């Protein structure tokens, strides 16, 4: 046994030595259902919609869908927000097919539909500006925005649902009737792992063609560019969605990693259409983009004078489940993303501190270590909000316990942190150490809380603690039990200022197939792991959310997760997992977070500095500068790396990191306001350029630039010794952009070469925006709660601007009782005014208006006047900077809860 353990530890070690071991993970060819579905013959669909059976109700159509072997019930439902739901299940299935529970944010809102035409061969319905045409034979569905077809389901005839069947007897006489089945249809091996597949084949697939689309986006999580590449048999593997703990993941591949959001956006200048493939089983998606296929056809078209038709083809393939698909018709990127948010929900407003700086390391050794690090941050004047503890704080990797020597006074440690306004986040992972006497393990064994293997025995895998089992979070009893572990009397040594990091929740099983749980393990309700795999991480964070809300009913929880699924935004922030201290990994952080944000999860970040290996000082300071403009702002490092806290570097590196941190802290009101707005509208906080400039064909592939709302645009500098950066300024000559470092103005006329040095990366305020800042960075964000605001008014071409600011108590749910201020600022005709968007909402803020900085103002103003409803008019001093680029209005001094008008003269 000891030897076996040693060998096992060693197998891990070997993995550590190199980068990703591709052999640990399946290709489409090594996955039976992917093989089967990719082989389906094109343009020869056997599926027929029997329109004789058509039934029409107020919101939906229903009809039988047939293939030569089985009959399905097909439903099309019209949903609010230009969205349609396609649903198909077997009429008399041998076993129930799995239907995803937990991804949707409640039942989608229905809307009325109207039948326009009905013949034997087709039915056309209308819903607002959209039309849907159902074609009977072969089965096909066309979606129209007004009269333009924007999506066609089963255009290529790849639609497939494998009905559940009895396993054919292995007849000795050799049966001629049975079609030749894929060798992996009824059982499958991968490396040394066997999948018994008790239900046999039950896969499903659907192709969608998007006429007019020129790019496809979405399908996170992949360590790849934002715009999806073309895939196909013999070339690139399909994009794979199967939550996996991939050691030292590779960049620019379609391999699966930790999270999965099966939403795809097809984007063209006129229409952006989304498809949400509501399926939690292993999924592969082939993408074919007309821009990448066949140069020949475009030449032919050129010769023949035919217009080159842009399109994107997608082919969704899943191992099991019912067919459940949402088609969202946009028509603009913002519309589609909001339609998706209407289905899967939004991130509830996080606490203010969560946007501050997080300092993590595997591991801070003990309580003294934590204390010293915080002291060094204070000595070096580096703002810091949250200290993090990785797995070593536990007593032998038993979660909900503390190391009895190194962390024996955890509440003292926690109170020391809160004494300077800080918080603590500790890791809690789903695997449970199988150690007799460990209460969690005993409880789980005694009450039957664990996931079982195919024979009904408790599943045993290997993870950090050694031999481990995995609670079944699909069981409501387990949810109740486990969430209660977060209560203060259960999690001894914790306080209300402890927040939670959920890692390894793919789930990671070191000795399992593809480092996860075998697909024939059994969950609550007798569902196999194959049916629910991609949901495990989401359910785990849901449990944590429940636990933290019960523990602290009036404090908003903070949870960080590695695995995620559609809907995870409702529970947790995510990060891009175990990246590396390499420039390429810094570069991929923007595309990865942008993709995840389009997938509904805006609260995204990448480990600053890179998790594996040691960054050189330049890479580290650049990483801080770049990460300043992503929502989740945390540094983290592997246990084998050298310490890299900012105070350990030379004074110039320290100064630059300090400046990045302070710039972040100045912008915290902006992040907070953006997340407030996300929680109301579902719009992503960070946006790729195509989102705001959908008609600009130059921005389609730009993913090293990120927009924060409609106010800031940052460009990542991810090259060693860069002296310049290429920045695309969108919007045309009417659009103004202001350099954040010197307020120089530019127009949105395309690419510029922007000189950079180690002090900065290119960051611009968008003309027409008003950004609220707190320009007095302190040790921790909580200490800035009452500090005054400075407004940065960036004028547009018409000398006007607008922006919003959200203020509340930063931590509680009182905002649900209308205890907040949601302010709109408008600048027009030399006058700045404010108004309250929700007039019935009030918050007694102590913050006031310290300063107004106007960018792009004419240079002849001498003074300003301040009017408030109560007070007299006050004269305010104004001044310009030496270059005349910014005008500063001195100390209006008015409370942020007062209405005011400030006019320049």
């Amino acid at each position: 046994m000891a030897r076996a353990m040693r060998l096992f530890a060693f197998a891990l070690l070997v993995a550590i030595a190199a980068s990703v071991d591709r052999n640990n993970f399946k290709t489409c060819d090594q996955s039976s259902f992917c093989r089967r579905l990719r082989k389906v013959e094109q343009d020869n669909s056997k599926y027929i919609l029997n329109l004789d059976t058509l039934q029409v109700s107020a919101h939906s159509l229903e009809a039988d869908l047939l293939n030569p072997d089985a009959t399905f019930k097909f439903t099309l439902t019209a949903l609010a927000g230009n969205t349609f739901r396609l649903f198909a299940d077997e009429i008399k299935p041998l076993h129930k097919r799995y239907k995803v529970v937990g991804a949707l944010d409640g039942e989608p809102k229905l809307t009325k539909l109207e039948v326009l035409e009905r013949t034997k061969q087709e039915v056309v319905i209308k819903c607002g500006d959209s039309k849907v045409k159902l074609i009977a034979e072969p089965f096909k569905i066309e979606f129209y925005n007004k009269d333009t077809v924007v999506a066609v389901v089963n255009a290529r005839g790849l639609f497939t649902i494998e009905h559940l069947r009895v396993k054919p007897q292995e007849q000795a006489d050799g049966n001629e009737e049975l079609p030749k089945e894929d060798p992996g249809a009824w059982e499958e091996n991968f490396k040394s792992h066997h999948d018994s597949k008790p239900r046999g084949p039950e896969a499903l697939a659907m192709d969608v063609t998007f006429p007019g689309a020129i790019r496809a986006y979405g399908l996170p999580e992949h360590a790849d560019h934002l715009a999806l590449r073309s895939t196909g048999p013999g070339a690139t593997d399909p994009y794979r969605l199967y939550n996996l703990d991939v050691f030292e993941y590779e960049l620019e591949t379609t391999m699966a990693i930790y999270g999965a959001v099966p939403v795809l956006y097809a984007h063209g200048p006129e229409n952006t259409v989304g498809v949400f493939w509501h399926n939690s089983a292993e999924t592969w998606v082939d993408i074919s983009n007309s821009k990448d296929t066949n140069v020949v056809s475009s030449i032919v078209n050129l010769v023949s004078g035919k217009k080159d038709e842009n399109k994107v083809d997608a082919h969704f393939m899943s191992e099991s489940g019912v067919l459940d698909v949402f088609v969202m018709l946009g028509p603009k990127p913002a519309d589609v993303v909001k339609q998706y948010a209407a289905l899967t929900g939004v991130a509830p407003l996080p606490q203010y501190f969560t946007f501050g700086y997080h300092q993590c390391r595997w591991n801070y050794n003990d309580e003294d270590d934590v204390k010293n690090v915080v002291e060094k941050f204070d000595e070096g004047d580096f703002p810091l909000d949250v200290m993090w503890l990785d797995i070593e704080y536990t007593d032998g990797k038993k979660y909900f316990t503390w190391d009895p020597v190194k962390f024996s006074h955890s509440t003292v440690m926690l109170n020391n942190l809160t004494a300077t306004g800080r918080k603590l986040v500790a890791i809690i992972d789903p695997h449970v150490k199988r150690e007799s006497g460990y209460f969690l393990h005993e409880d789980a064994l005694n009450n039957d809380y664990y996931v079982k293997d195919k024979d009904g025995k408790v599943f045993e895998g290997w993870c950090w603690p050694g031999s481990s089992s995995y609670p079944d979070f699909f069981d409501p009893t387990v949810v109740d039990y486990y969430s209660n572990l977060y209560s203060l009397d259960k999690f001894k040594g914790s306080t209300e200022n402890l927040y939670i990091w959920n890692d390894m929740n793919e789930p990671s099983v070191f000795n399992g197939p593809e480092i996860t749980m075998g697909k024939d393990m059994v969950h609550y309700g007798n569902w196999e792991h194959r049916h629910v795999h991609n949901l495990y991480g989401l359910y785990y964070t849901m449990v944590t959310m429940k636990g933290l809300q019960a523990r602290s009913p009036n404090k908003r929880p903070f949870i960080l997760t590695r695995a995620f699924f559609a809907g995870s935004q409702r529970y947790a922030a995510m990060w891009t997992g175990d990246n590396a201290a390499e420039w390429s990994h810094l570069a991929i952080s923007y595309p990865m977070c942008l993709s995840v944000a389009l997938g509904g999860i805006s609260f995204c970040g990448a480990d600053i500095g890179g998790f594996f290996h040691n960054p050189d000082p330049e890479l580290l300071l650049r990483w801080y500068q770049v990460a300043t403009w992503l929502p989740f702002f945390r540094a983290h490092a592997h246990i084998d790396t050298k310490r890299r806290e900012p105070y350990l570097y030379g004074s110039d590196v320290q100064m630059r990191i300090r400046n990045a941190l302070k710039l972040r802290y100045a912008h915290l009101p902006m992040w907070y306001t953006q997340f407030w707005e996300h929680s109301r509208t579902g719009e992503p906080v960070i946006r790729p350029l195509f989102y705001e400039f959908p008609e600009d064909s130059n921005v389609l592939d730009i993913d090293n630039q990120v927009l924060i709302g409609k106010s800031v645009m940052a460009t990542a500098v991810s090259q060693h010794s860069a002296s310049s950066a290429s920045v695309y300024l969108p919007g045309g000559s009417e659009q103004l952009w202001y350099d954040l470092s010197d307020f120089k103005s530019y127009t949105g006329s395309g690419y510029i070469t922007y000189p950079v040095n180690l002090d900065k990366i290119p960051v611009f305020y968008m003309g027409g925006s008003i950004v609220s800042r707190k320009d007095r960075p302190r040790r921790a964000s909580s200490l800035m709660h009452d500090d005054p605001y400075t407004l940065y008014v960036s004028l547009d071409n018409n000398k006007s601007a607008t922006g919003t600011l959200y203020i509340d108590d930063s931590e509680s749910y009182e905002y649900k009782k209308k205890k907040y201020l949601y302010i709109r600022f408008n600048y027009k005709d030399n006058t700045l005014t404010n108004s309250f968007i929700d007039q019935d909402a009030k918050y007694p803020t102590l913050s006031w208006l310290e300063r107004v900085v106007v960018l792009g103002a004419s240079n002849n103003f001498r003074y300003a006047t301040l009017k408030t409803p109560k007070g007299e008019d006050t004269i305010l001093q104004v001044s310009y900077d030496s270059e005349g680029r910014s005008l500063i209005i001195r100390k209006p001094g008015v409370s942020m809860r007062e209405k005011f008008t400030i006019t320049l003269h």
Partner: protein
Amino acid sequence: MMPSIPKLPAKSYVLCILLIVVCEISTSEVPRPRGVPLSHNPLYNPAKDFVCLDNSLSIPFSQVNDDYCDCPDASDEPGTSACIHGTFFCMNVGHTSTYISSSRVNDGICDCCDGTDEYVKGKCANNCQELGQSAMKEAARQSELLKAGKQIRASMCEMGIKLKAEKKDKLVIFAAQKIEAEKIMREKEQIKKNIEELESAALEQYRQIEEENKRIKQEEENKKNRQEAEDTFVRFDSNKDGIVEVSELQSLHTFDRDRNGEVTVEEAKYFLNSKDSMSLEDFVVEAWPAMKPFLMLDEGLYKPPQPAGVGEVEEVPINGEEPTTEAEFEEEGVNEEEDEEDEEHPEEEEEHEETNPEVTYDEETQNLIEKATAARSEFTEADQSVRDIQSEITKIEEYLNKDFGPDEAFAPLEGECFDYMDYEYIYRLCPFDKATQQQKSGSSDTRLGSWSKWSNQNYDAMLYDRGQSCWNGPQRSTTVAISCGSENKLTSVSEPNRCEYHFTFETPAACYKATTEGIKDIHDEL
């Protein structure tokens, strides 16, 4: 954008204790803007406009401390958080006055012990008195400690200097001994050389006979091989046309190298040196040497040599074992180094002992051999004696080259070891030698580093490196922070980075200068 404020001393000491009352009166009697040190108070005159201390701007006095930053040097806001580069003066009557960053003014946290950095009255307790008193006590304790430490240090220095002198004396003695020993060694070497010349001449004729025997044997061997080649050629040349062709080889399963049951043209050609056919002469020269092992293999006469690496893999089929072997190698490596030192002078004479046991020598020769052997042994002895002395000299020289700090204060620590126990390990520091770690339950040491050098010129940190390698990590190393203490004591151990240890060590040897200054000031003021 903000020019930095003029540098102020980090700390200034207020004369208090007996003057508390006066201080309090003075603070209440002399009104000053919040956060301004008394020394700067005259610059803040409410009757006049305020001029920024860098003279950059003049502003109405009402704008001083109005929570808006006007002066680029932050001087108009000494008592608020408005200027990002400003400082706030904590008078801290009863304790040490300090400056804090403006960012800590009125942030809800009490930073000054007099509580003046927070605006809300009663928010912060004034605990300067207690802190001041305990600081005084602590200073007094430190001072005592230092005094005691200094005394011990003086005796350590004395001992260090003495030790060094002793070593130097020894060095002189050994140097003389070495000259004498070298003389003897050279004499013995000459005797050995003379007798070996005779011995060599006598052995020469025997060597010739041996070589002739070898040659004859080789010729017979070659002949046999050629015959074998010719026989094989004839056997392979199935159509008897005097040429061996590819097709003829293809019928022979011996040449099926990939064991797929078929001898391909490529396989056959491989044995014919890529040619289609071969005459007898070419066959013997070009084809036979490649073919022979395969034919022997076929007959079970021959096992192909295995590359060392392959063999290892077979013995240790699981990669899992590698780190262990690596670690072993490393440990062996260390030993090897030591061995190498011993082998620095390869013993040339060894070749003479390769006497062929089969040969019997005549009496005279035998006699010579015996004499030569005796001479060699005497020389070896003399040589060893030189080396022993040299080794002593080297040791002393190494010692003398070691930097034991100013006045040789640290010298008495050499040869001693100090332990620190935490709940799992016993850590041991042997200054100028090594740092180790031992599991409480176990017995074997892990070397955390060998003495390398002082980390800087202040003699307050030592580096021990080249320790045992970590599992999948770097070689262990240890830094030792040295501070003044009344006795030699290892006071703490931590591992801030994996395999990088940090010890703190107190010793009277470190009780000098730097530490004294701060304490002296207070005493002087008293």
